[in-house]
């Protein structure tokens, strides 16, 4: 280890109790990546922060020594957002897990960033309230991580993303200053809170968060429709939306996913002879609920549903959701590794895109299953693979790249809820021109002028962005080798 790093680490150790600064290789191993396991980097150290003051102290120290730092919640991100940047330390926020205030009358709570998403909903349930954004990882992911990634979930078709539910954030800026952006009464001036949310930890570290709490619906109805074709499931979704209904969730699972789920501990009783199942949830006032249910069931029936099930009680509802929420876990049965892709297309493009995804998987000889937020056109093609084989890894990445290129080609996006992280740095140019990226880069420099806060995420490095596009493959390696770099 070089002298400056040694000096930094000794100051870091002096600033915190011994057990809150991890530097041993065995301790650091688990921090090498998040849920995106195709890219790993060992951090220089991990600081287990317990307060805003801890974060400030660490960030100031990093600034003094020019050491990059990366915030991390539960590490459930799927794009490498909290994966250590080279030479960086991690600031782990999972211990900042207190719910500081619940104001049921005004419909908000104040939480620390390490509060687990589902724990917040459980804590406010006695007030008849809940926190609406519900990523599939909600039993483990943290609110701070959700803010960093602007996380979604099955219910954001009706209720919106994390950004729609965050009223304010206390942020430790990349230079160590503390700023409050927004709050329970809104904010004056530019919407800095809005720009901070989804900045993937590159604009600072959220240390206190004001979240909107939603009243629980008077009634919830959940249905499962099974179809012999994916096209019929997608058509049903389009017709449900076109009919003027606004379900809380519209989720589709394909045949391979159904089989994986049914063979796992997440078995939910999905029909295994179906090509696709559609999970529909209605919520709201009881008035009008029967009419909405009848309309949905009629549409699914007309589209040839081979079975229709309505959850009759909360236990049945939980069972139907168990399969959907556990789908990614169930994929673990298929292969040692799982690459969860995330792309968005206009909803009308779903059937053609799914056919294209299938064709790509076949061409690259990969096992690919689909679980997706059909109402939003948000696809999650899941590639199950063995990452120990470098050739397979290369095929996985190439297939993923083709799928995302197709999403953009039909008017969509390379990510609906997982973020760019390190995973999609090479794909950003599918969507954005050099000028588009330069404008974003300018904004990043405003927040993070020294580039120490989570470097190498969201945007390709400026030089790389400009040169790689014009450089034939392999040229950079040859050049850098020749120059002794």
């Amino acid at each position, binding site marked *: 280890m070089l002298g400056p790093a040694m000096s930094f680490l000794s100051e870091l150790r002096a600033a915190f109790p011994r057990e809150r600064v991890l530097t041993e290789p065995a301790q650091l191993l688990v921090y090498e990546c998040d849920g995106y396991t195709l890219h790993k980097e060992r951090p220089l150290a991990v600081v287990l922060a317990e307060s805003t003051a801890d974060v400030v102290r660490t960030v100031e120290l990093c600034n003094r020594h020019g050491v990059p730092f990366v915030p991390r919640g539960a590490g459930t991100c799927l794009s490498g957002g909290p994966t250590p940047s080279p030479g960086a330390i991690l600031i782990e926020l999972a211990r900042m897990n207190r719910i500081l205030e619940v104001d049921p009358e005004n419909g908000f709570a104040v939480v620390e960033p390490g509060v687990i998403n589902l724990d917040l909903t459980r804590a406010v349930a006695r007030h008849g309230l809940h926190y609406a954004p519900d990523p599939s990882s909600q039993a483990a992911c943290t609110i701070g991580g959700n803010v960093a990634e602007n996380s979604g979930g099955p219910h954001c078709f009706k209720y919106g993303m994390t950004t729609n539910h965050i009223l304010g954030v206390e942020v430790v800026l990349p230079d160590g200053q503390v700023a409050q952006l927004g709050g329970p009464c809104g904010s004056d001036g530019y919407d800095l809170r809005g720009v901070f949310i989804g900045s993937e930890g590159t604009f600072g570290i959220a240390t206190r968060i004001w979240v909107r709490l939603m009243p629980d619906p008077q009634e919830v109805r959940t249905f499962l429709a099974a179809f012999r074709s994916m096209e019929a499931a997608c058509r049903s979704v389009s017709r449900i939306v076109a009919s003027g209904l606004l379900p809380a969730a519209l989720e589709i699972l394909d045949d391979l996913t159904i089989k994986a789920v049914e063979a796992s501990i997440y078995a939910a009783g999905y029909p295994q002879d179906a090509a696709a199942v559609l999970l529909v949830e209605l919520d709201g006032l009881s008035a009008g609920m029967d009419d909405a249910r009848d309309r949905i069931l009629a549409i699914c029936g007309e589209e040839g549903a081979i079975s229709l099930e309505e959850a009759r009680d909360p236990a049945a509802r939980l069972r139907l959701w168990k399969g959907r929420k556990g789908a990614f876990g169930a994929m673990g049965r298929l292969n040692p590794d799982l690459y969860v892709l995330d792309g968005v297309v206009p*909803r009308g493009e779903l059937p053609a895109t799914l056919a294209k995804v299938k064709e790509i998987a076949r061409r690259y000889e990969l096992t690919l299953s689909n679980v997706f937020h059909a109402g939003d056109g948000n696809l999650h093609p899941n590639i199950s693979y063995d990452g120990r084989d470098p050739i397979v890894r290369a095929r996985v990445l190439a297939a993923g790249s083709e799928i995302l290129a197709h999403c953009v080609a039909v008017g969509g996006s390379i990510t609906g809820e997982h973020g760019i992280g390190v995973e999609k740095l090479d794909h950003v140019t599918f969507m954005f021109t050099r000028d588009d990226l330069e404008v974003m880069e300018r904004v990043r420099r405003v927040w993070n002028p020294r580039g120490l806060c989570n470097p190498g995420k969201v945007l390709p490095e400026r030089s790389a962005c400009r040169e790689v596009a014009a450089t034939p493959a392999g040229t950079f390696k040859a050049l850098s080798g020749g120059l002794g770099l």
Partner: protein
Amino acid sequence: VSTVAQPRLVPGATDPIQVARLLRDAHNGRCKVKLLGHGTTVGDGAGTPLSLAGLGRITRFQPDDLTISVQAGCPFPQLRAEVERHGLWLPFDPPDAGQRTVGGAFADGVAGALAFGAQHPRDLLLGLSGALADGTLFKTGSRVVKNVAGYDLPKLFVGSRGTLFAATELHLRLYPAPRVRVLIASEPLAREDAVRVLLALRRPPLRLAALTVLSVEGGKARVLAEVLGDAAVVAWLEARCAPLRRVEEPAAEELRAVRDRQSFLRSCTPGPACSGAVLPTRLPALLAAMPAGAEFALHGDGRFTVLGAELLDAAESLGGRATTAAGRRTALPAPVAALAAAIKQTFDPHGCLPGLWTNHQ
């Protein structure tokens, strides 16, 4: 801009490239420019008007995907009519909607009564194309309903009042139109009673799209609510919102117009006036701080507009915020002010566009 040169601009761009060229000319010549739609909101500061009203087309409409793309100068009523023709709805009711362009309404970012239970404009803008002051054309966000690729710069546009860059095309999220929409209102009540009713109507399971207490003559106030949904839902809600009763058309539309005008700070001038927000449960305390004859609109989410008083201190002492029409308020905390100034500087380094605007509702 140390020396304000006479701008050599031809107001009235008709395509984005022209907008970019005009802005670049102003930037290079250190000229001041003021971006306008229909000129409903006269921006702050000096500058040659650059009208975007010539960019008036709906460029893409995919009703099945609940999205629409529209040029910034498209008249708001035209957008609304096109959307409604397909059974859809843009849940955004900016003040003076009839006279506005879409770009102007989003740049102003002033939410109407529907922001209580429907949507805030910031949640409806999915993406945009625009031109920086130096003429750089760029796009940000996307045109699909869900996207987290790159930084969320559309958020910076909403409420920026033309101080950062010109948006030339906006991508918007739509919703299915409610089958029934009715306005219900109370008779004039003592204003404290009206606020008590408002607080009661905020409670679940009631879900109202808009909820407002509006001052009326004689020192009294009325409670107004928008009820949306299927017929069964509307009937259920109406039955539980006593003492509010349905207001039939055309009286309902007239009452909405009064509400919207009274909610809009800049329609309240001249005279002392302010708008802002407090926690809803502190609305009674805010009301107590108002002079007896003040004209006001109080919304169920704590937003308020008051004519006849500048309640800046009262709002801040209640933990809220307030601004006057001129945007005057207590200075933003230093790190926030520095961030805002740096963002302005990075988008518009020569200060060609109007200066910082600090009234974000």
